[in-house]
């Protein structure tokens, strides 16, 4: 039961007719309980990769093997809520089996209690993103895919939700793929970090984090981050002179 990704290429044909190569060969795999983090410049192809991995885009070269019948929980980069259904209905539609207690708990954690009956059009963007998170959590996924889940949230809330993601990952056998621009999130949540190149994306570096998530204190995290910053700055310097 692993997620095996072996993409050899992906091109888009724009409406104007040009073709753009978006993904270079990308190959990695992810096991149960692992959190893979994709970090890369804006527009490099991260969301495209996620769409391919989830089977939403079949027009690519290569192969992706998902665990069969895996329940998927996904936080898209935009909330993608149904505007004509209330917050609660939006969650329930994705996770019909959820029980009331679970739902209440989820809304409490995400600080959405007051908004259960609101329509998405009545939410702030941050609230909407939280509903999207609630939806992904509610399905109790086997494969959790998060595309910048903590953007547009204030630091305090983002921190609390990061903890929640960690809790979820620890409590169930779930594979997680996280896209983020925040090194902090990456280091706190990830087991393996994939640093991607600009478009067409390929994996520049795969950095495993050996220390188990639960054991990462502030000091360890700072150390890992410092190491990564050195590394990327070295690379950037290298690029700049080339």
């Amino acid at each position, binding site marked *: 039961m692993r997620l095996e990704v072996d993409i050899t290429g992906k091109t888009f044909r724009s409406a104007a007719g040009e073709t753009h190569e978006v993904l270079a060969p990308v190959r990695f795999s992810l096991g149960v309980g692992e959190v893979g983090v994709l970090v890369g410049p804006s527009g490099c192809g991260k969301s495209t990769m996620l769409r391919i991995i989830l089977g*939403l885009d079949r027009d690519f070269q290569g192969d992706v093997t998902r665990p069969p019948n895996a329940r*998927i929980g996904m936080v898209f980069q935009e909330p993608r809520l*149904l*505007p004509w259904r209330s917050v609660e209905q939006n969650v329930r539609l994705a996770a019909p089996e959820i029980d009331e207690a679970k739902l209440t708990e989820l809304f409490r954690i995400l600080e959405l209690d007051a908004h259960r009956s609101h329509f998405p059009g009545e939410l702030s963007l941050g609230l909407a993103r939280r509903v999207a998170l609630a939806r992904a959590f509610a399905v109790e996924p086997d494969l959790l895919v998060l595309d910048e889940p903590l953007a547009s949230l204030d630091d305090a809330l983002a921190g609390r939700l990061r903890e929640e993601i960690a809790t979820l990952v620890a409590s169930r056998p779930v594979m997680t793929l996280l896209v983020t621009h925040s090194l902090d999130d990456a280091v706190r949540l990830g087991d393996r970090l994939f640093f991607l190149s600009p478009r067409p994306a390929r994996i520049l570096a795969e950095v495993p984090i050996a220390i188990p998530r639960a054991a990462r204190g502030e000091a360890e995290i700072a150390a890992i981050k410092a190491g990564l910053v050195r590394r990327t700055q070295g690379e950037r310097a290298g690029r700049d002179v080339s």
Partner: protein
Amino acid sequence: MLRLLSFALFLAIWWIAALFVGGVKLPSPPAVLQVMMAEAASGALFLHLGATLARVVLAFVLAMSLGSAIGYLMGRVKLADRLGDPWLILLLNLPALVVIVLAYIWAGLTEAAAIAAIAINKLPTAVVTLREGTRALDRSLDEMAAVFAMSRWRAFRHVVLPQLAPYIAAAARSGLSLVWKIVLVAELLGRPNGVGFEIGVAFQLFDTPRLLAYSLTFAAVVLVIETLLVQPFEARSTRWRPRAA
């Protein structure tokens, strides 16, 4: 309230116009009302209205459901669109008269033929409208439904249908009016009752008050249905939309 006012205004304009133009060219509201009452008292009004309404409802339901399904398919599946398009244009542009006559010829002067002919006339406009709606569907929500493994029916009901709702509303409203226009032709050509039949008779006698009495009664029925059923339902189902400032 405003609706009532507007309606009153309509009556007033009509009345004044009738006074100016004179009875033969435009009967006044009381003249028409009198005919309505007389026809209602004799029961003829209800008989004919009932017959027509039954046909309208059957043909409308048939055409709307089949037309919506075909339109959805054509909007979704490119192949279906390519194959169906010439037929669609043909059907759209076949005169009502021809369809009705052919239906009567093939299927006899029967109720079924009438209803089928009316439905065939309405069908393509529903197809066309729903096809546009389907083409305009938001694919990102489809992806969402796919990711969360929503069942087909669930996704259709909660993701697709609400997006199609305005198209369905448009197709239904203009479609009802089309069905109504065509049921009259069908009744005129080969049915022994119904508003169209009565209008045909009134037309032969050039009896404008009667012509108007029957026409307006149907319009009134639709107005009542709109006010009491459709609009409250519509208001409820579009609650989620941000209100205009």
